[in-house]
């Protein structure tokens, strides 16, 4: 008769970990780092593209999570959303602080999974498929607006210019599109 070990503990509860981090718990921070470093680095790299710069910004973000963990308020959203909001904003700040003339001209690209960590890639692939499926349910303008804004870090006036539509149209499409994505992905908040 085979004897199985008791069930392993569930994946760490990020909000709980951040509470411990706020009290200066380095071990809890390591666990939070394990959960967050992939998405943080991934989204920063998606926006910045340059690996060296992305690494630098991702490090700043993760240290910011350590520094400001006490300001995370569970009542205001998930821990992942809090951390990834910091990450995205930092990446965008970096883009905007660069010389406007040297802005890269890029097409909105699909996120590309890494080649060196399978479990993470598979998890991201699953999420990627859900995102792609829900993106397919948007209108072309909604989809392009969201991709250019989020994945490329463009401001809505820049998006409007790239797509050749009015400012008001882009603002509306980003909002409508996000609401549709939220409902499609069954986001709870």
């Amino acid at each position, binding site marked *: 008769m085979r004897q*199985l070990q008791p*069930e392993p503990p569930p994946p760490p509860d990020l909000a709980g970990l951040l509470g411990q981090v706020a009290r200066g718990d380095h071990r809890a921070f390591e666990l939070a780092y394990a959960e967050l470093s992939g998405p943080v680095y991934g989204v920063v790299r998606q926006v910045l593209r340059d690996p060296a710069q992305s690494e630098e910004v991702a490090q700043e973000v993760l*240290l910011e999570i350590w520094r400001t963990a*006490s*300001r995370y308020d569970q009542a205001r959203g998930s821990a992942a959303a809090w951390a990834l909001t910091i990450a*995205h*904003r930092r990446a965008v700040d970096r883009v905007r602080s660069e010389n406007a003339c040297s802005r890269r001209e890029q097409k909105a690209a699909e996120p*590309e999974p890494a080649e060196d960590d399978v479990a993470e890639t598979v998890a991201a692939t699953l999420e990627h498929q859900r995102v792609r499926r829900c993106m397919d349910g948007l209108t072309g303008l909604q989809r392009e607006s969201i991709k250019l804004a989020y994945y490329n870090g463009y401001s809505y006036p820049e998006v409007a210019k790239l797509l050749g539509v009015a400012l008001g149209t882009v603002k509306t499409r980003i909002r409508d599109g996000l609401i549709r994505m939220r409902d499609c992905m069954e986001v709870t908040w």
Partner: protein
Amino acid sequence: MKAMREDLHVLTGSYALDAISDTEREEFERHLQHCPACEAEVRGMRETAARLALACAVTAPARMEQQVLAATYRTRQLPPLSADRPRRALSRRLALPRRASSRSAFPRGAVTRRVAVLAAAASVAVAAALGITQLSAQHQLDQARATAIARVVTAPDAHVATARTSVGGSVTVVTSAALREAVVSASGMASLPSSRVYQVWVMSPSGARSAGLMHGSSLLASAVRPGDRIGITVEPAGGTARPTTTPVAVLPV
């Protein structure tokens, strides 16, 4: 005035995606304080944006971890906001940095100094660093395999199936019919005594063929065909030629 409010309300999406200027952000955050409906909408959109971020997660360079962990030992944390510290701006409430600080905590070209700091840091960080070194070596050994696996999960025709297992956790199978390969990835399954292993099988009407032992979190199964199924069983260490126990999970490819 009302027209302006409505105009601001439309900004919820652009605000949640950081697609507005600093000036507009400040204006919008002032508006948010008096508009609970907008704040709720922003919250839902932030969660949605987080999912967009999760979809592009990639493994961070291993050296980042030791550098960040070492930096935590020389970085003072902010105190919590308390009732006597009024919550003025939303960005303070959410503790979002207004601007990336101009001085980076990780200056370029300071690797040597960072290593020195690391060596002096508490043993936790040093242990973490050693763990990472081993991990990188392992990564290099597995590079070819990892590349093969990545090819499957990024294939245009990649198909994903997930199931819970009878020993906890779940198994995910990503199959590319064009490549005739499947990636089997497990997480959270009960750990086994050293005398037992999880063995993966490609099961077809003609029988079950071993795809190998599950040592890490993932495994690549080759020569899979439509209609095959992937099964996982608990077997004696070293594996067996054919399954001897009831599968803990069976998934279609």
